[in-house]
Every structure is written in structure tokens, then in C-alpha cells.
């Protein structure tokens, strides 16, 4: 657990990992998207608009997956006071929020041709919107706390938010959903392999990019942290 506790070691590892993730991520998503957008068959009922899926679905998964990561990092920060965990959480949040937003935008763009409207109050759409709000709440609180000089609030919020996620999922029972249910399962996916393959490839690519961006942000955060600390010492030296 504490193997990475010391920022120096983390930085050493991250310095190597970042470019690798970035490169492979770019390649995978490029390939996946290229196949998806040009080299895969149009959907027999949705036509070309189905191609949005290759962005939409990975974004959706990373959006929700990112929040899980955020909550876990926050828990580690709270329980073990792990120095890097908080930085990790603050690095993950905006990226996850971004993917969530992408999912929402692509989704509603997809909605216009398929459902005839940009937005419907459908269980899944709504739950995704709420997820975005949770992200934004975390971001606002954590920055405000950083301004004051730290605090546990944002971490607590992130964890409490996770308690809320399943509840949001169950809201399906209050609305009949327009959105399609899970068609991709580990066994026997209800989706044509010609579509599944590029989807999974771009998913892998996006995931790698997600990791790369988080690492970059963590490194940046650590750097600024050291700089400001030094500046503070200098200033106060002759106070």
C-alpha cells in the first residue's frame, strides 16, 4: 500500500509510464475510431448515426468508472492519509467529469436522430446527468478547500456520492427507459462482432488515455506543490 507513498518514487515510475500510456492510448483509440467510423458496417436500423457509439459507450464507461476510482482514491486518502491519494483523486475528477460530459453530449446528439429529441427524462440519461453533478460538486468543493488550505470535505463527499450511485441506478423503476439495456456482456454479446471489435479497441484506447492524463495531472500537482512550498518558505524567511 505504502510502496508508492513517497512522491519521489511515484514520480520516477510516472515519468516512464506516462509516455507509454499516451502512445498506446493514442494508437488504440485512433485505430478503434478509424475502424468504427469508416471500416465498420452501418447499423441496419440506425444507419450511420450508430457510429457515435464508438465514442459514446467508452465515454460512458469511463465516466462511471472514473467516479469509482475517485471514490476509492478519496477513501484511501481519508483512511490511510496516503499523501498521493488525495492528489490522485483531484487529478481523476476533472477527467472523469469530462468523459461523463462527452457521454452526455454524444448521447443527446445520438438521441436527435434516433429518438427525435436531444433530451428525455429517461432513467439512464438522468442518472448520468446526476453523475456529472456529483463530479462538479466534488470539483467545486475540493478547489474551495484547497483555497483554505486543505480539508477532508471533498473526500467525504466523493464517498457519500458513491453510496448514492446504486440508488440512482434503481431509479429505472420510476421511469420506463428509452435507452437500450446492456447489450454487451462478457458472454454472448447481443452486438455484431464487426461492431464489438472496434468498440473494445477504442474503449481500451480511451482507458489508456484516461490513465495518461491522470498521471500527467498528478505530476503537475506535485510540481506546483513543491514550488509554492518553496516560495512560501522564502517569503516567510524574512517576515
Amino acid at each position, binding site marked *: 500500500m505504502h510502496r508508492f507513498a513517497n512522491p519521489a518514487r511515484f514520480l520516477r515510475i510516472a515519468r516512464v509510464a506516462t509516455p507509454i500510456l499516451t502512445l498506446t492510448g493514442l494508437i488504440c483509440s485512433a485505430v478503434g475510431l478509424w475502424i468504427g467510423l469508416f471500416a465498420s458496417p452501418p447499423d441496419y436500423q440506425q444507419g450511420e448515426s450508430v457510429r457515435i457509439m464508438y465514442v459514446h459507450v467508452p465515454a460512458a464507461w469511463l465516466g462511471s468508472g472514473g467516479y469509482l476510482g475517485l471514490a476509492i482514491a478519496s477513501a484511501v486518502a*481519508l483512511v490511510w492519509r496516503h499523501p498521493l491519494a488525495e492528489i490522485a483523486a483531484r487529478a481523476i475528477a476533472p477527467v472523469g467529469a469530462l468523459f461523463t460530459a462527452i457521454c452526455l453530449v454524444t448521447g443527446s446528439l445520438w438521441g436527435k436522430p434516433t429518438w427525435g429529441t436531444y433530451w428525455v427524462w429517461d432513467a439512464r440519461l438522468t442518472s448520468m446527468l*446526476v453523475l456529472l*453533478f*456529483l463530479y*462538479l*460538486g466534488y470539483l*467545486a*468543493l475540493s478547489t*474551495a*478547500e484547497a*483555497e*483554505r488550505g*486543505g*480539508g*477532508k*470535505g*471533498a473526500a*467525504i*463527499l466523493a464517498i*457519500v*456520492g458513491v*453510496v*448514492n450511485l446504486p*440508488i*440512482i441506478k434503481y*431509479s429505472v423503476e*420510476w421511469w420506463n427507459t428509452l435507452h437500450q439495456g446492456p447489450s454487451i456482456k462478457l458472454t454472448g454479446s447481443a452486438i455484431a462482432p464487426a461492431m464489438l471489435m472496434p468498440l473494445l479497441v477504442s474503449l481500451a484506447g480511451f482507458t489508456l488515455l484516461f490513465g495518461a492524463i491522470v498521471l500527467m495531472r498528478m505530476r503537475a500537482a506535485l510540481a506546483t506543490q513543491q514550488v509554492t512550498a518553496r516560495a512560501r518558505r522564502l517569503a516567510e524567511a524574512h517576515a
Partner: protein
Amino acid sequence: MSVFIGLVRRDLALALLRPGTLALPVVFFVLVAALFPFAVGPDARLLARIAPGVLWVAALLAALLPVETLVEPDRADGTLDQLVVRGLALELVAAARLIAHWLGFALPLLIALPVAAILLQVPMAVLPRLALGLLLGTPALAALALVAASLTAGLRGGGALAGLIVLPLALPVLIFGVGIAAPGALRLLAASSLVAVAIAPFAAGAALRGATR
């Protein structure tokens, strides 16, 4: 225990010193109720249909109004320090504050409910159910408001920030509350209040500990 009761009594006494704080949510609640008939027009059926939702949203937002003065003053004037030094668990303090806040915010709201209901032309038959729903649901709202207030104590942009934190978490309560017609909704409402009230003191306590540092 006597200490706990003492804390609740004290919080209530302080709240009574500032009845403006107590009245503000009620004023807001009634204003919102008075507003919607004009928004949707005279159609009574339509009005009756949205009435529970409107009342619940109004209640939810009303719970947010005192958020900036719920704990911040105690942090700023050193009250929290005095309590911590005496070895009182901030969770206990938060629990006392939660009870006081609920009494100070939910009771006036329930008293104002009939007025609001009349304004929204809610059939009197529905009123008891609505009241029961609010009675069961408002503890959750109070709990969320307390947590938000503790989280944002001493931070800029208190109100909007607190709202951003509370509202997503309050959605389940809102959904259960509006759906009280549905079977078992009341039970779900009570359940979510129980959960919220059970967790809130610990979340708030931890947040306050951070704020005194």
C-alpha cells in the same frame, strides 16, 4: 446525555434569537407555492398533479436557505474549539445540531403546509399524506443541509457550493417523497431519512474536525 440535551436546548435557544432565520424558509416555501398557480394557469387538475412535486422541491430548497449560518458562525467564533477542547465528539455536536435544525426548519414548514396546499389547490384529502411524507422526509433534508453546511464552513461561495453538494444527494428523497402515492414509497422515504440521519453526524463531524484544523 444531559450534555447532549443541553446542546440541543442551546441550539434551539440561539435559533430563537434569530427568528428571521427560522422564518426565511417558510416565506420561501409559501412564495413558491403561491407562484405556481400563476405559472401553470387556472387548470386545477394540472395544478393538483404537480402540487406534491412543487411542495417537495420548495421544501428541499428551503432546507438550503439557512445553510450559510448553520455551522460557520460556530467555527468563526471559536465555539467548535471550545467543544473540542472539552473532549466532546464533534459527531455528538453535529447530531445535536441536526435535531435542532430539523425542529427549527421542518416544524415551521409543516405548519405552513396547509397554507401552501390551499394555494396549490391540493385536495384536502391528499393533505395528510403529503404532511406525513414531509414529516418522514424532512429529516433527510435537514441531515443533508447539515452535512453541506459543515463541508462548506469557512469556504467561499457557501450557498451555491452547498446546493451543488446537497441537491444530487437529495434526489432519492425527492423521488420517494413525490411518489408517496406509490405503494411502499412512505417506507422508502422513512428508510432514506434513517440512512441520512444515521450517516450525517459522522460525515458532518469529520468535516468539522477538518474545519477546526
